[in-house]
């Protein structure tokens, strides 16, 4: 899961750093910065953790610097889904890359390339956002059918920064004001107000070394929504020039990762309580906001059409509202398929010569906060499309190219399959831009094929009709 793009370059760097390291296992970061002021916000209002670190850093060395390191702690089954960074004042993005350090210690280092070279004594304000999956654990792990669900988060009291931090504060934002348990250290450094628990401010925290004993805090809070987890999503984006259509089909394998049912499911209590629609940890409906102008939506699963869905669409927005066959309680599974069509002109532009530029959302998905195990996006371009290039809004973990043979194809349609592991829905509705060449010759391949096959059928039947097979007259 913790793989990263452009691995070779980073691992080379990591190797060099490792060689310089005294510990041998973890990465040693040169002490060239200090964090003047740091504010960490841990947002647990969704079914995963969104951690934002806003930090003012100062170059304390005497050389200009470009690389800044920040680790995220990923104990147990949790993992970093994405890390993004920007210069907070000028709002310019910067690059964040995972460092491949192979250490057992649950810290995942990220190397952030500053948007501009930082001169000695200069400061810059960075805003670094990360999505962490698997960090929330339902406690109790099993609950009754109409009981409240609580999730628990355990994190570091101090940001595990490899640099000296002069001043830092952590804000934990729960999904709900109902917070029965949270760690109090004894001082006045912990404050709860509404949904938020604030730790700090703490002054002059030295660089956190990986062999230090971690001081952690735990917050257990009510989570009234289901913990939607898509084990796998297969998303097909099919471009048809002749049909002037962009068809999208999504196949989901869904699990509710919340607290499991203690007893068996009771329809009686489900039916009697459903009149006043209480909050529940079960997935009852899923709402898919689609782009305006979407049409012909469908919702099926492995045993056929599911009639409990509603779809409304106009030119500005479209919503597909689906209700699974049964409520999905913690630990239950469900799989389904949805799909819809769009008019192609809203997504495709003709470039120079034979080239075309396609701009489609890489990931859509339900409004409920969702994390994804594996997302496979297949871009199915017209038969005979060549020179495919794409610009993805999120790092792609694996890419495959092949020909997908379907209706009336002779060669097969050019297909690019992009795999992204461990994704969260913060990254949805971002467009991937694909350019490809598609010549007029390729466009006329299909009608010609049909024409030739019909004519040859006619010719063969005409010839066969003339043959006299009778014996003796």
């Amino acid at each position, binding site marked *: 899961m913790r793989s990263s793009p452009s691995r070779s370059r980073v691992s080379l760097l990591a190797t060099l750093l490792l060689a310089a390291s005294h510990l041998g296992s973890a990465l040693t970061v040169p002490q060239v910065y200090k964090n003047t002021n740091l504010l960490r916000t841990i947002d647990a209002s969704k079914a995963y953790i969104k951690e934002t670190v806003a930090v003012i850093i100062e170059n304390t060395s005497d050389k200009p610097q470009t690389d800044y390191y920040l680790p995220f702690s990923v104990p147990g089954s949790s993992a970093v889904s994405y890390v993004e960074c920007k210069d907070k004042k000028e709002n310019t993005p910067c690059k964040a890359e995972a460092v491949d350090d192979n250490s057992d210690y649950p810290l995942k280092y990220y190397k952030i390339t500053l948007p501009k070279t930082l001169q000695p004594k200069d400061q810059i304000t960075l805003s670094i956002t990360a999505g962490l999956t698997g960090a929330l654990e339902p406690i109790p792990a099993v609950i009754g059918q109409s009981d409240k669900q609580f999730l628990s988060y355990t994190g570091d009291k101090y940001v595990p920064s490899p640099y000296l931090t002069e001043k830092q504060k952590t804000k934990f934002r729960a999904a709900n004001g109902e917070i029965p348990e949270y760690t109090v250290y004894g001082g006045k450094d912990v404050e709860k107000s509404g949904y938020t628990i604030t730790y700090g401010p703490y002054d002059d925290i030295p660089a956190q070394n990986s062999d230090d004993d971690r001081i952690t805090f735990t917050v257990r809070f009510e989570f009234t929504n289901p913990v939607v987890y898509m084990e796998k999503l297969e998303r097909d984006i099919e471009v048809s020039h002749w049909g002037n259509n962009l068809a999208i089909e999504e196949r989901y394998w869904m699990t509710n990762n919340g607290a499991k049912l203690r007893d068996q499911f*009771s*329809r009686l209590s489900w039916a009697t309580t459903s009149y006043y629609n209480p909050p529940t940890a079960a997935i009852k409906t899923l709402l898919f906001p689609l782009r305006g102008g979407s049409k012909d939506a469908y919702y099926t699963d492995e*045993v056929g059409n599911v009639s409990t869905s509603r779809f409304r669409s106009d030119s500005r927005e479209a919503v597909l509202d689906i209700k699974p066959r049964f409520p999905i309680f913690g630990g239950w599974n469900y799989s389904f398929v949805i799909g819809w069509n769009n008019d192609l002109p809203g997504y495709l532009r003709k470039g120079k010569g034979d080239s075309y530029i396609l701009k489609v959302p890489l990931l859509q998905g339900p409004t409920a906060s969702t994390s994804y195990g594996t997302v496979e996006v297949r871009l199915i371009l017209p038969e005979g499309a060549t020179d495919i290039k794409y610009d993805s809004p999120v790092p792609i973990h694996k890419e495959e190219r092949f020909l997908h043979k379907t209706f009336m194809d002779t060669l097969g349609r050019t297909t690019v399959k992009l795999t992204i592991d461990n994704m969260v829905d913060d990254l949805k509705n971002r467009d991937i831009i694909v350019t490809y060449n598609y010549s007029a010759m390729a466009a006329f391949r299909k009608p010609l094929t049909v024409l030739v096959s019909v004519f040859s059928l006619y010719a063969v039947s005409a010839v066969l009709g003339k043959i006299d097979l009778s014996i003796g007259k």
Partner: protein
Amino acid sequence: MASSIKATLFKDPASTESTRNILKVVILLVIAAVSVASRLFSVIRFESIIHEFDPWFNFRASKYLVKNGFFDFWNWFDDRTWYPLGRVTGGTLYPGLMVTSGAIWHFLRMISLPVDIRNICVLLAPGFSGLTAFATYLFTAEMKDSSAGLLAAAFMGIAPGYISRSVAGSYDNEAIAIFLLMFTFYLWIKAAKLGSAMWGGLCALFYFYMVSAWGGYVFITNLIPLHVFVLILMGRYSGRIYVAYSSWYALGTLASMQIPFVGFLPIRTSEHMAALGIFGLIQLVAFVDYLRGQVPSKHFNTLLRAIVVLIAVVSFVGLVTLTVTGVIAPWSGRFYSLWDTGYAKIHIPIIASVSEHQPTAWPSFFFDLNFLIWLFPAGVYLCFRQLRDEHVFIIVYAVMSSYFAGVMVRLMLTLTPVVCVAAAMAVSSILDTYLEIESPEEAAEESDSKKSKKTKEAAASGSNTGGFLSSKAPFIGIYSFTSKAAVVASFSVYLVMFVLHCTWVTSNAYSSPSVVLASRMPDGSQHIIDDFREAYYWLRKNTPYDAKIASWWDYGYQIGGMADRTTLVDNNTWNNTHIATVGKAMASSEEVSYEILRKHEVDYVLVIFGGLLGYSGDDINKFLWMVRIAEGVWPSEVQERKFFTSRGEYKIDHDATDTMKNSLMYKMSYYKYASMFPPGQATDRVRGAKLPQEGPQIHTIEEAFTTENWIVRIYKVKDLDQFGRDHFAAMAFESGKKRAGKKAGMAGRAGGKKGRRLVRA
């Protein structure tokens, strides 16, 4: 004016011929399109879904075929049904249907049209109904002429009797079998007419296809020999019959034995003996015929006749001896139930429990065939008028299938084609007579009295074109335009009403998938009740892959197809004892059932309960069949009488017997059901009965899932108690502890009394 149009249109005989051919092709294509279209109601109204019960097995087998290939399919041993016995599926099914859809699937992939196998399966029956219409056209054209053929094709295309088994989604053997039946018959008529070994061979080939597709092939196996036998008795033996029959029988029987499920049946069972006997007889007759040609002596002929009779008697006695000694299997129970409709109810309740094996009610003839049913005798009468060899076939077919259709509802299917053919001949004769625009000219000179007499004759005689009788007769016809118009108009009305009736019946009676139920919302919009798939999908997604599900056999195929879980019994019903075991588990008290369920490693038990919604096809209504089937195997342990009240009523309310109330089926159906209603209001809407407020208690199983409208209820069989107690004691202890806080532990003792020892499996 009409004649001038006719003259201009059909001036040139060659162009007339080609125009007619084009018209025929166009009409046949339109008929095929209509017959496909009228079967699509269910797809349009619901979705592309496999219907009912048996089609789910066929669909599952087809998926297996396209996934694993033909040879794996041929040797398929299915360990996910009939647990723990399994089923040698490859050797106990008619593979024709699956192989057909598999071949279509591969062909479409080859021309790069990758259609989903489900859609092929759903649309196979409508597709083949178009072909059936074409085969009926060919068959009827051999009987009368092509205009009768076109009528017959149209009738066949939309007759509800056939549509009932061939709507989209009704993916059953009959879907292709009726086409094969008609086409085999057509080839047989062609072979018998021409005396051609090629047509006989083709007939055998399609007979083989038929054998591979449907158990009803026995109908052909007996009908063709009967036809030949009747022809021989009528003294119409000819070389043509000999060639046709011998080539069909020899090739067809050898081919049919290649199907594993059929194997050596054609030479070992009584059902097939008629064909073998006629094969022997026709050799003798041919031999005698040859000798008579060589030696024209009267006495010799008498002697020969004696020999023939002797050999026939001897072989018949031999046949009986072989049957008695058991070399040839005696008639099967299903066969007896064809002659005695009460037989199945007494001896094989499992056959009698299927609704489509009941005797046909009279209204259903009219319902399924409309005006064809009263034209049918007229058509058969017309066959008697000409009585060529092929007409004898129609008569034999009509007599046999009329009888069988009266005995069993599902055999209406075999009656429908001959009714369509006969009715088309009748209608076509009437239209031939009354649509002749020209009035007879020679007759104009004759006197008025003669004229009217001739009119009557013509009306009765039907056909005046073709045929050896009419060719000798002078040109006769109808004189009065009014009578022509009246008859034609009334028949047009009948035809239009027929179309309306067919459409109405198809739409209302035969287009429900029965997997999903449709109801109306208060605002008139359609609401789909999808409880079956809700439950099956829950099983599919949220139980272990190797979970074993016990349910009544009706749902076995659906569980296999939709839930993809192992079942104990299914609609194949090959093992009566196993079905009786499940029946016994349902009909017995919890202690007995738990032992049975544990012994069969059952994880979940599934029941269908219609009480909340008023769905009448539920398990409580089928319950007596479970009891009867179980009683057939364990008469001392399960007794039907104990499920009736002292007044002989089948009750589920306060008056229900203790046996009924303690049966697992009753408990699973009504568990917690009364709590859905305000106190004292609990009603079972199917049986219209008020239920006791205190519902049944369950101990050895626990409710795992109940669907939205309570139609499907799934129970989990509890594991053995961790402390070695029986479940009654454990439950009593639990409830005692729970209530202790509120009510000072009274319940603990009260419940403890109920505890009984359980034998652990």
